């Protein structure tokens, strides 16, 4: 029994210590923003590897999610004789929820895990220590550009996901199931609100991008520098990112749409 409480105490203290290290890590990372912006090449390289290389998975996933929404939406809406509202349903689902959430989860799986493994291996092979001894701050030189790239890319990838999703919904709804083309677009234009839907969706994806980039880079930086340590850290990145995205999505949705 005593052992149980001892272990519980250890785990609790360990978790608090980790949160503390994470916050210091974040502050240190943000402190490097100025120096990274003065050397845009560092950022551009990361924007390519974190953002551009995620383009394909986000596009294909967006297309299929949009197509499935078109299919399911049509079956439900046509029961109520409201199949023309398919455009609204597809667009609202994507812009409000699925775009930010699914693209952030995919981003965590594709780019976040890669960041954790990269940083973890740099730690294991003493590259980060080597930089410190060359009087180069590894957080500012290595972490900050990756953090900023993740933060900038996520909203753009979410926008891409939603746009391609709408095209997917249109392909199925209008192209295959015969929904009226004019009604699809005009109802969407009339109903989707810039502030309520698009801005809120962008805010969500900015928050998710911030959190996923933070978790991915911190897990890599804080990992035990062995093969097993890096492997565990990579798993933690994907699991913790997914939980954080879904939890934060609920909170943000409640705050944004709670009063309507």
């Amino acid at each position, binding site marked *: 029994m005593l052992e149980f409480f001892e272990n519980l105490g250890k785990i609790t203290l360990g978790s608090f210590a980790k949160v503390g290290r994470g916050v210091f890590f974040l502050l240190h990372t943000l402190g490097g923003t100025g120096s990274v912006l003065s050397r845009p090449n560092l950022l551009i390289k990361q924007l390519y590897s974190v953002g551009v290389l995620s383009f394909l998975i986000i596009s294909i996933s967006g297309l299929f999610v949009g197509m499935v929404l078109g299919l399911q939406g049509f079956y439900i809406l046509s029961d109520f004789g409201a199949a023309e509202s398919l455009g609204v349903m597809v667009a609202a689902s994507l812009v409000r929820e699925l775009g930010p959430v699914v693209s952030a989860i995919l981003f965590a799986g594709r780019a976040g895990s890669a960041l954790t493994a990269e940083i973890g291996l*740099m730690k294991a*092979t*003493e*590259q980060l*220590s*080597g*930089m*410190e*001894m*060359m*009087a*180069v*701050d590894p957080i500012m*030189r290595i972490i900050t550009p990756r953090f900023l790239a993740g933060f900038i890319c996520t909203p753009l990838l979410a926008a891409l996901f939603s746009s391609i999703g709408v095209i997917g919904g249109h392909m199925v709804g209008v192209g295959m199931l015969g929904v009226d083309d004019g009604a699809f677009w005009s109802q969407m234009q009339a109903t989707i609100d810039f502030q309520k839907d698009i801005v809120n969706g962008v805010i969500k994806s900015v928050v998710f991008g911030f959190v996923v980039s933070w978790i991915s880079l911190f897990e890599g930086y804080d990992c035990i520098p062995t093969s097993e340590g890096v492997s565990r850290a990579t798993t933690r990145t994907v699991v913790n990112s997914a939980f954080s995205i879904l939890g934060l999505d609920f909170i943000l949705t409640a705050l944004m749409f709670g009063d309507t």
Partner: protein
Amino acid sequence: MVKTNSVENAIVIVSNLSFSRGSRKIFDDISLNIQRGKITAIMGPSGTGKTTLLKLIGGQLAPDYGQIFVDNQNVHTLKTADLYALRKRMGMLFQSGALLTDMNVYDNVAFPLREHTRLSESMIRTLVLMKLNAVGLRGARDLMPNELSGGMARRVALARAIALDPLMIMYDEPFTGQDPISMGALVHLIKALNSTLGLTSIIVSHDVQETAEIADYIYVLSEGKIVGEGTPKELEKSDSEWVQQFMNGNPDGPVHFHYPAKDYLDDLLASQ
């Protein structure tokens, strides 16, 4: 009474250093001096904290007690900016080489120059080629780190460590896992760089022959204490059992062959 080197000519002074990891004491009140312009070796069995000592000197770890001065500056009271300024004058050669794997050999050696100087690319090119030529790898400039052998990676790391013309270089196990030719090349390089560039070298190693060949002064560490010190010749004649066991590679002595365990016979019979 333990002998000490002269403090006047020392570039690194470690005084009354204690350091622990968890409940394990790595260093217990040790003091040593590294002489300017000399090659000083820190030797001892695996796990005696030799690499930890280098990290303490480089300010990557902080001691529990005691002080470390490098070039008359107390490493652990320096502000971050001053510590980084001091590190620019210290080169460190990691056991793995610690080359940046996303850059080729040329860019790895150019890295500290690009980070810390405003030199033109043509000037950087000249410097990088000079440093690579010094380690015999000018022709390997376009290779990536994964295309290098262990010995080559260490030589590239050495070229990188001398890129900013430091005051001193710390070598972490430079000879471990090297074939005789690479080992010979590294021994020769360390000696040659020390004399031609007027460096101070600290070599952490357990390769007795190679290190004794080039070291001017040797400290032998064991179980958190300095158990012997002196020039290689003095250590050969040392009457300390520790030093004799280490220098001659005897399997048993003050450092026991067996990890502490209960009585052998009792242990065998206990399973019945």
